[in-house]
C-alpha cells in the first residue's frame, strides 16, 4: 500500500480542487470540468499506450478525436431519406470506386517488380481514380447538399442509440490508424510526429469540407443523449419531489408560498442540469475505470513486458524474435481506437459536432502535455495528467483575472495596461501550460507519477 501513497495523495488533491470549484463557482461548472477531465483521461490513456508503452510519437490525436466525433453523427442521427434518394447511389458508387482503386493498386504492387513503370502506373491509376470519383460524386453531392440545406443537406446517420457510436468511433479510429500505421510507422521519431500531425490535419479538412457527410463547418446540433433532458426532468414529478426533499430545510425557512414556489423552481432548474451532468459522469467514470483495469492488466502481462522491451531496445527485442513492425502497428491501432472513443464521448457530452473547432493546439498538443506532465508509462499518472492539465486549462483564466486584479488594484480602472491585461486573461492558459510543461520536462522528466516497473 505504501507504494500507492503518492498516487492517492495526488488524486485527493485533485478531487479537493474540483470540490473547491463547486463551492466557489458552482456545482454545475465543477461537474463540467470533471466530465471533461474524464474525457481527457481517456485520451491520455490512449496516448500513453502509444508513447509510454511503446515509445511511438503520435501527433495525430486531433484526427482520431474528430473521427470519433464523426462516428456519433454517423451512428445516432436519423437518416435523411430524401438525401439518400437523390444522391445515395452516387455515394455508394464512389465507395465501390475507392475499393476498386485500392485493389488495382495492390494488384499492380504485388504483381510487378519495382520499376519506374510500376510507379507511373500506380500514379496514373490513382489519378484516374480521383478524376472518376469526382465525376461520379459531383452530381450526387450537389443533390444531397441541396436537400433542405438549412437543416440537413447531408446523408444523416443510422439512427441507432448514441452509445453504439462510442464503439463505432473506436473502430473507425482504429481502422484509420491501421492505414496510417502501414504508411508512416517506419519513419524515425520526429518524422513520425510531423507526418501524423499533417495526416490529422488532412482528416479534419476532409470532415470540414465534405458537407454531404456531416454538414462540415455548418455543424450538426441536437445530437442524441444517453441521459435524460433537462426540460423533461423539470416537468417530471419524481424529480421535483426529490429536489424538495433534499432542500426541505432551506424551503421551510421561506414563509410566503409564492416565494417558496419561486425558490423551488430555481432549485429544480439548477438540480436538473447537475443531474444530467452526473449521469454523464457516471458513464464516463465507468469507461475510465474499465480502461484503467484493462490497460493496467496489459501493462503487467507478458505482452506489456514485451512492449517495454521493444521500447527500450528495439534491436535487442528484434534479436529475441519479437516482430517489431507488427507490435508497433498493433499498439498504434489500440491507442488510436481509445482516442477515437474519447472523441465520441466528447461529442456526446457536448451534444453537437463542430468540425471547425478541431485544432491541433487543443486536441493534440494539450493532450501530449497531459501525458508528459502526468507520467509517461504509468496509467495512473496519465489520468492524473489529464485531470491536472484540463483543470489548469479551464481555471487558468479566472485565476489569472483574479491575480491581475490583485496586482493592478492600485491603478485606476481605465489604466491602459490594466484594461489590456484583463482583456488578455484567457490567453494566460497557454502561458501556464507551456511553463508547466517546460518545468516538468526539466526538473521531473518522468512526470508527476513516474513509471513503476515491477521486477519479477
Amino acid at each position, binding site marked *: 500500500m505504501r507504494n500507492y501513497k503518492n498516487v492517492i495523495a495526488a488524486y485527493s488533491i485533485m478531487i479537493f480542487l474540483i470540490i473547491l470549484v463547486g463551492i466557489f463557482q458552482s456545482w454545475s461548472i465543477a461537474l463540467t470540468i470533471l466530465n471533461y477531465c474524464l474525457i481527457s483521461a481517456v485520451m491520455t490513456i490512449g496516448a500513453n499506450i502509444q508513447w509510454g508503452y511503446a515509445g511511438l510519437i503520435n501527433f495525430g490525436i486531433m484526427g482520431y478525436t474528430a473521427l470519433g466525433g464523426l462516428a456519433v453523427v454517423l451512428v445516432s442521427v436519423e437518416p435523411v431519406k430524401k438525401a439518400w434518394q437523390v444522391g445515395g447511389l452516387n455515394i455508394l458508387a464512389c465507395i465501390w470506386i475507392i475499393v476498386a482503386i485500392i485493389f488495382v493498386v495492390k494488384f499492380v504492387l504485388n504483381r510487378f517488380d519495382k520499376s519506374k513503370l510500376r510507379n507511373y502506373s500506380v500514379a496514373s491509376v490513382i489519378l484516374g481514380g480521383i478524376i472518376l470519383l469526382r465525376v461520379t460524386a459531383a452530381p450526387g453531392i450537389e443533390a444531397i447538399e441541396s436537400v433542405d440545406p438549412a437543416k440537413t443537406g447531408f446523408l444523416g446517420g443510422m439512427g441507432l442509440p448514441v452509445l453504439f457510436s462510442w464503439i463505432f468511433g473506436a473502430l473507425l479510429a482504429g481502422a484509420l490508424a491501421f492505414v496510417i500505421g502501414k504508411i508512416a510507422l517506419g519513419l524515425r521519431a520526429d*518524422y513520425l510526429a510531423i507526418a501524423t500531425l*499533417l495526416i490529422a490535419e*488532412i482528416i479534419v*479538412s476532409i470532415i470540414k469540407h465534405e458537407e454531404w457527410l456531416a454538414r462540415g463547418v455548418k455543424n450538426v446540433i441536437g445530437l442524441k443523449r444517453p441521459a435524460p433532458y433537462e426540460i423533461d426532468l423539470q416537468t417530471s414529478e419524481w424529480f421535483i419531489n426529490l429536489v424538495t426533499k433534499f432542500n426541505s430545510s432551506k424551503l421551510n425557512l421561506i414563509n410566503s408560498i409564492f416565494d417558496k414556489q419561486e425558490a423551488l423552481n430555481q432549485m429544480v432548474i439548477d438540480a436538473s442540469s447537475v443531474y444530467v451532468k452526473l449521469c454523464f459522469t457516471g458513464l464516463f467514470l465507468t469507461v475510465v475505470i474499465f480502461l484503467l483495469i484493462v490497460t493496467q492488466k496489459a501493462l503487467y502481462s507478458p505482452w506489456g513486458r514485451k512492449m517495454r522491451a521493444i521500447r527500450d531496445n528495439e534491436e535487442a527485442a528484434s534479436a529475441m524474435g519479437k516482430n517489431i513492425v507488427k507490435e508497433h502497428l498493433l499498439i498504434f491501432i489500440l491507442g488510436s481506437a481509445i482516442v477515437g472513443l474519447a472523441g465520441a464521448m466528447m461529442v456526446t457530452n457536448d451534444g453537437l459536432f463542430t468540425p471547425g473547432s478541431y485544432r491541433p493546439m487543443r486536441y493534440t498538443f494539450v493532450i501530449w502535455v497531459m501525458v508528459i506532465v502526468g507520467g509517461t508509462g504509468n496509467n495512473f499518472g496519465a489520468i492524473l495528467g489529464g485531470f491536472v492539465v484540463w483543470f489548469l486549462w479551464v481555471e487558468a483564466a479566472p485565476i489569472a483575472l483574479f491575480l491581475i486584479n490583485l496586482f493592478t488594484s492600485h491603478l485606476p480602472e481605465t489604466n491602459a495596461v490594466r484594461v489590456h491585461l484583463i482583456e*488578455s486573461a484567457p490567453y494566460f492558459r497557454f502561458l501556464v501550460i507551456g511553463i508547466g510543461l517546460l518545468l516538468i520536462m526539466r526538473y521531473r522528466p518522468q512526470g508527476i507519477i513516474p513509471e513503476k516497473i515491477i521486477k519479477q
Partner: protein
Amino acid sequence: MDFLNAIIVLFNFTVIPALAYGSQLALGAIFVTLIYAVLRFANFATGDMMSFGTMFAVILTYYFQSLGIGLGVLPTALLTIPFAILMMILYMLIIDKFVFSYYRIKKSPPVQFAMVSVGVMFVTQALIRIIIGPSDRRFLDGEKFIIKAAEFKEMTGLTEGITLKSTQAITIIVTLIVVSIMFWFLNRTKTGTSMRAYSDNEDLALLSGIDPKRVVLITWVIAGILATIGGVLYGLDKSYRPFVYFNNMLPIFAAAIVGGIGNPFGAFLGGYVIAFAEIFVTYAYKRFISYLLPEHLEPDSLLQLLSTDYKFAVSFSILVIVLLIRPSGIFKGKVI
C-alpha cells in the same frame, strides 16, 4: 492572341502568387532545416517564432506611422525589420539559454527536444496573444500595386491583365537577396564552413577547434533573421494573424522535408515545390482552357482538380508521398 491570353491568365493566377507564397515558405523552411541540421531537432515552435518576430514589426510599424516616418512608396514595415530581427534574436537566445541549452549539453534524444519545443510554442503563443491580441491586423502602407490589370490591358491590348502587387514583388526580391547572402555565408566564409562541419559531425568539429557555443549562437542569429523576414513578408502579403502563423508551420515543415531536411538549398526549392503544387492542383483551369480550345468545345465544369479548401491537404499529401518513396527528400538531406 488567344494563346497569349491563356498564358497571361495562368501567369497571373498561378505563377505570381505561387512565387510569392513559395518565397515565404522557403524562408521558413530554411529556418526549420538550419535548426534541424545544427541543433538537431524538429522545432515545433517555428510558426510561432515567425509570428513573434512579425509582432514586433507590426508594433514598430504603428509606432513609426504615428511619428510620421515612412519609406514613401515602400511599406514602413521594411524599415522596422532590422529592429524586429534584433528583438527576435534576443528572444531566441533567451529561450536557448534557459531551455534548449540544458538538453543540448545532456545530449537528449530528438524526441525530447521536440516536446520541449512544444512547450516553447505554448509560451510564445501566450506571449504573442497577451502582447498584441489574436485579432487580424493589416500593416501594409505605401503603394499597393506595381502593375494593375486595367493598365496592363491598355498597354498590351490583350483581354486578360496581369496584376502585380507590390508585396509580391518585394517578397520575391527580398527573399532572393536574403537567401543568396545566406548561401554565400554558409559556403564561402569560415564561420559558415565551421557551421556545416558542426552539422556534419559534431565530435570531429570539436576536435578541429570549432567553438560549439559560437556555432549555436550564429545559428540562432541566422534563424532569427530568416524567421522575422519570412514572417513579415507573409504578414505584408496577406495579413497578420497569430493563429494563421501556427497553421503555416505545417506547409513549412512539408517544404523542409520534401527538400531534404538539413539541406538549406533543398528547403529553399522545397518551398516553391509546395507552393506551386498547392496552387496548381487547386486552380480552376476553365478560363485557361477556354482560350486554347475552339468555342464549341468549351468545358462546362470549373476543371478544378481539388477545391481550394484542400490547399493544405495537397502539400501534406506530397509530404506523405515523398516520405514513402524517398524519405531523405528530393535533394538528399540527412539520412534517416
